[in-house]
């Protein structure tokens, strides 16, 4: 099947008509170049979106409280709503298996020290489920567990950067650090994909914080994830129901937007998903458009090539070339020009993206890259494109009659 002489013939023909070949390849190279860059930029935008949400589970719901803005049932506006442990328990019981993970959060900002190193960190007092909600990755040791909650142990899990700041060269695990004058044992070190700020946090059991700081059962915020089996609409109606029930529970007007705030990530996720889809479609349409323009360009030039080589094809036929041999010459030339120039376009595109990555970062385009799948897909597309572009001209060439071609001009 592999006929080295045929390839030699074709490369000779391409080589002897270099300008023409380069010109015809240019359109395809340019089409692929544009496509690659567009695709990369779209990927970069997607990455930016993905990063914005990667920090938290995409089925998260955040419940926060504030002051009422409306008088309701004899209660005045401006009343402060405070969540307590019983509210956490209420949600857990009321909604059962609609809730996947749930945790309370108490925020503190505490001056922390170990030996001579000290700094101020955000401290979050949480339930064990918080690990899954926040996508916290344990590097050393363990996370807060149920036993810590029950026994109100004085343990903390510290972020990677806290570890780096305070412990320098020693290992943090098992050491005691000082949080506002109280000694806590470090039982774990975590990392988080959400960025540096997320790794400058200290977690402790919610019960410990309630006992040590104020001896109450207050909660600042409740985070939960809904059961992932729920679809988008179910998730939205779930959070709406949750909002309504909480408002009733605290005797807050239904129309009060400040007193109890429920934020459902499903809405954002859906918007981002739609946007990504739209973006992909636009890129595909533009990409295919340019590619088709490229194919038409090659096809045009191949028709011209056939016209120009009419005499040569006539000579070949007079010397005994069969129609399919003529077809394969023209077709392969078209495929080779298309594929090579397509690859040149792809390489330049990837190069441009590589060079532009640092600049693009400022425009919310993160890590714009082209996947291997795309490269393979592009190869197949290019070969098909080359075949399409060359087919009609090749057919035309094979029908050239030698007497017509050889007629003395």
């Amino acid at each position, binding site marked *: 099947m592999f006929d080295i002489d045929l390839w030699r013939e074709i490369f000779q023909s391409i080589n*002897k008509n270099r300008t023409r070949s380069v010109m015809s390849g240019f359109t395809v190279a340019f089409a692929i170049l544009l496509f690659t860059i567009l695709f990369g930029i779209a990927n970069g935008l997607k990455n930016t979106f993905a990063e914005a949400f990667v920090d938290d589970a995409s089925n998260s719901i955040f419940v926060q409280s504030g002051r009422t803005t409306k008088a309701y049932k004899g209660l005045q506006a401006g009343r402060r709503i405070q969540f307590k442990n019983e509210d956490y328990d209420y949600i857990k019981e009321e909604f059962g298996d609609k809730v996947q993970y749930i945790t309370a959060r108490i925020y503190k900002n505490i001056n922390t020290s170990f030996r001579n190193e000290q700094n101020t960190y955000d401290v979050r007092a949480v339930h064990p489920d918080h690990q899954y909600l926040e996508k916290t990755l344990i590097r050393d040791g363990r996370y807060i567990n149920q036993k810590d909650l029950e026994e109100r142990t004085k343990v903390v899990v510290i972020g990677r950067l806290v570890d780096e700041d305070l412990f320098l060269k020693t290992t943090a695990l098992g050491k005691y650090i000082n949080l506002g004058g109280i000694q806590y044992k470090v039982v774990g070190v975590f990392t988080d994909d959400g960025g540096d700020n997320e790794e400058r946090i200290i977690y402790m059991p919610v019960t410990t914080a309630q006992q040590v700081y104020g001896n109450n059962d207050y909660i600042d915020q409740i985070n939960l994830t809904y059961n992932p089996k729920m679809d988008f609409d179910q998730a939205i109606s779930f959070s709406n129901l949750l909002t309504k029930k909480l408002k009733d529970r605290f005797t807050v007007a239904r129309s009060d937007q400040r007193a109890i705030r429920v934020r459902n990530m499903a809405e954002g996720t859906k918007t981002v998903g739609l946007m990504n889809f739209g973006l992909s479609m636009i890129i595909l349409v533009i990409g295919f458009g340019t590619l088709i323009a490229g194919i038409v360009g090659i096809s045009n030039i191949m028709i011209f090539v056939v016209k120009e080589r009419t005499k*040569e094809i006539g000579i070949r*036929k*007079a*010397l*005994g070339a069969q129609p399919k041999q003529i077809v394969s010459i023209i077709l392969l030339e078209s495929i080779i020009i298309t594929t090579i120039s397509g690859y040149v376009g792809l390489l330049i595109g990837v190069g441009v993206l590589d060079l532009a990555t640092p600049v693009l970062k400022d425009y919310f385009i993160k890590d714009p890259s082209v996947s291997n799948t795309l490269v393979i897909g592009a190869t197949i597309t290019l070969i098909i494109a080359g075949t399409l572009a060359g087919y009609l001209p090749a057919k035309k060439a094979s029908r050239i009659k*030698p007497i017509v071609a050889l007629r003395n001009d």
Partner: protein
Amino acid sequence: MLKISNLHKSYAIGDSSLHVLKGIDLNIDDGEMVAIMGSSGSGKSTLLNIIGMLDEADSGEYILDGLPIKNLTEKKAAVYRNKFLGFIFQSFNLINYKNALENVALPLYYQGLKRKERQKQAMFHLEKVGLTDWAHHLPKELSGGQNQRVAIARALAANPKLLLADEPTGALDTGTSYEIMEFIQQLNDEGKTILIVTHEEDIANMCKRIVRLRDGVIMEDTFVNQVRAKQNV
């Protein structure tokens, strides 16, 4: 070698048709050297094209070396052309981006020979026309006479049974024409059957037989005393 009887051919021109060949009968034996003469429009080129399987007759019989040539598929015609026929054209018809050696090797490529073997045979034929030193030159770097010799080498390369020459000296000056004719005579001396279309009397007289066409019929078919081109050079 070649047997043609009652051959007709007409071309459609607009609504009317032009009857170009009106019943040609022609027999050519092995080793003959025949000139087909006639003014333009006499049908001599059409006849040559039909003999060369570049065109097909409307009716009549054409048998080449015992093989009836009729209703050939394009593929079959290509194979026959490659095996039986060698073409020499007025305007040489070399492929301009291939050097002399590659041009001569082209029919061998279509015979499916290996590259090494092609090059060897092509070189042998180039040597025969005295162009060994020019093997790697492009047609544009060669003179008209040299180009026609390359074309002859190419026509010979596939070792055809019949050599067809369409005005082989039409684009050459007298001196070079005679050189080429001398060479063609040599080939005939070696036993090749040769058919030359020409409208020049002196060239025709260098053949052994002259067939005169007028208005699509053979007017005259005579054997002549061959004039050796060498004396004229």
